[in-house]
């Protein structure tokens, strides 16, 4: 089933075109990874899926993105962002306690009942595989956690609003290998319940976790195929060059 469908998507920032005619169909419960060198438009594509690009006043967006068949421009933006969660490149805890970080989204959506919040927080932290590490210090500042723990806390925070799609924007770029492995393991577990779009600079990460992989170059989608195929027999020479490390 197609979860997100982007048709002829073009994006400009300040008259510079960063995405050119992107057509991608994202399937339910898959991990789609997007690889490509910096400035290839990967993150701009990701941020267009939850309408975060609109925060940039100079942005201009043309084309259509459908979420479950509905044009996302016609959706209430808060509802869209509730359904399409996002994990940022750097661990970005809010200046609140661990508990309040995870409960933030639920509170903003009107859940006040303490017991309900407690349940939501515990479930989300469990899903992000960090509950055991933080269960005794929920009232401490989230900034006291290590970088890897902070990033898993951010994943839990995203899960707590019960999204259907999770966008990961280079989630491991600031993490050590052990934390990276934990985050990747988390993503593989989440696949059962969520659709995941993963933007990564780390080609090997895409090979490890993704079902399908898209290769972006200078704002264009060069190739999109099963991850196995992309990494063994890509149809485009540029894809081959990039994954072999000839440029990028």
């Amino acid at each position, binding site marked *: 089933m197609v979860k997100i469908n982007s048709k002829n998507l073009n994006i400009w920032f300040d008259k510079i075109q960063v995405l050119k005619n992107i057509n991608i169909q994202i399937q339910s419960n898959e991990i789609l990874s997007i690889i490509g060198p910096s400035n290839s438009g990967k993150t701009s594509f990701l941020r267009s899926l*939850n309408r*975060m690009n609109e*925060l940039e*006043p100079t942005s201009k967006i043309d084309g259509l993105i459908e979420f479950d068949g509905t044009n996302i421009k016609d959706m209430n933006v*808060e*509802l869209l*962002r*509730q359904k399409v*969660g*996002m994990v*940022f490149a*750097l661990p*970005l805890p*809010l*200046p609140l306690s661990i508990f309040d970080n995870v409960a*933030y*989204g639920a509170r*903003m*959506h009107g859940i006040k009942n303490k017991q309900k919040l407690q349940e939501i927080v515990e479930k989300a932290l469990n899903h992000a595989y960090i509950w055991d590490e933080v269960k005794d210090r929920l009232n401490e*500042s*989230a*900034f006291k956690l290590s970088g890897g723990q902070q990033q898993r806390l*951010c994943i839990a*925070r*995203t899960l707590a*609003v019960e999204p259907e799609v999770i966008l990961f924007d280079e989630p491991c770029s600031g993490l050590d290998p052990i934390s990276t492995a934990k985050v990747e393991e988390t993503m593989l577990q989440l696949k059962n319940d969520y659709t995941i779009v993963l933007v990564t600079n780390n080609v090997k990460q895409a090979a490890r976790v993704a079902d399908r992989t898209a290769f972006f170059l200078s704002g264009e989608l060069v190739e999109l195929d099963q991850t196995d195929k992309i990494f063994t027999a890509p149809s485009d020479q540029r894809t081959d060059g990039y994954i072999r490390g000839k440029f990028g």
Partner: protein
Amino acid sequence: MIMNSKITQKAAFFFFLLATLLIVIPVGLIVFIIVIKGAPAISWDFLFSMPRDGMRAGGIFPAIIGTICLVVGSIAFALPIGVLAAIYLSEYSRDNLLTRIIKLAIVNLSGVPSVIFGLFGLALFVVFLGFGASILAGSLTLGIMVLPIIIAASRVALESVPMSFREVSLSLGASKWQTIRHIVLPNAIPGIMTGTILEIGRAAGETAPILFTVAAFYLPQLPKSIFDQAMALPYHLYVISTQVPNVDEKIRYGTALVLLALVLSVNLIAIIIRYKLRKNKKW
């Protein structure tokens, strides 16, 4: 050559030190002289009784109360308006000609001499709106005077909250207002408070804006409502220093000491609050 550059360096350091001392010495001397000359006047009676004998004796209680009323009134007016305007300017407004003109106007407003605010207050509040010379008119005039700085300080405070916090909050499906209310504003409060408290000191000390709008020359009773005239410390100091002959020096310096202590203690509170809140800052 090497000796030469060493001597130049020492000379430069000496002048830097001198320049720094030149700032400290006058401040120190002002405080010192006022404390030495004013301290003997300070007594329970001086602080809490009415002036007598054409202000040559008695206390300055009504002036203290008047100044407190004016400060509270002006901040009650300027703080909400200033913070709301700052939120609009830094969070909602787009960068266009109109908002640039507004921002420029605010910056210029903070450079307008205070006596002009006094005249403006006289024309608008006292005469046109018919408040008469009253605490209300004086508070509003002082409020308009401190407004630009409160807006500027609040804007800086709001804009110093990292953009990433806003993005995280929005990405979780919070609305723009929820983001401001729960993330931006709480983290901007230390900066807003510092700016506001410093402006309290200014509102307490200014003479010109209250000259035509509220200050009573001699009024040995406390104001009963916001439509009453009131005495105020800075104007009282001016009056007993220049307009009333034969006022004991002790009383003049005592009044100055009370005003100075009021303003400096407010500034001290600002510094302490800022220090404490910065220590709690979590990013």
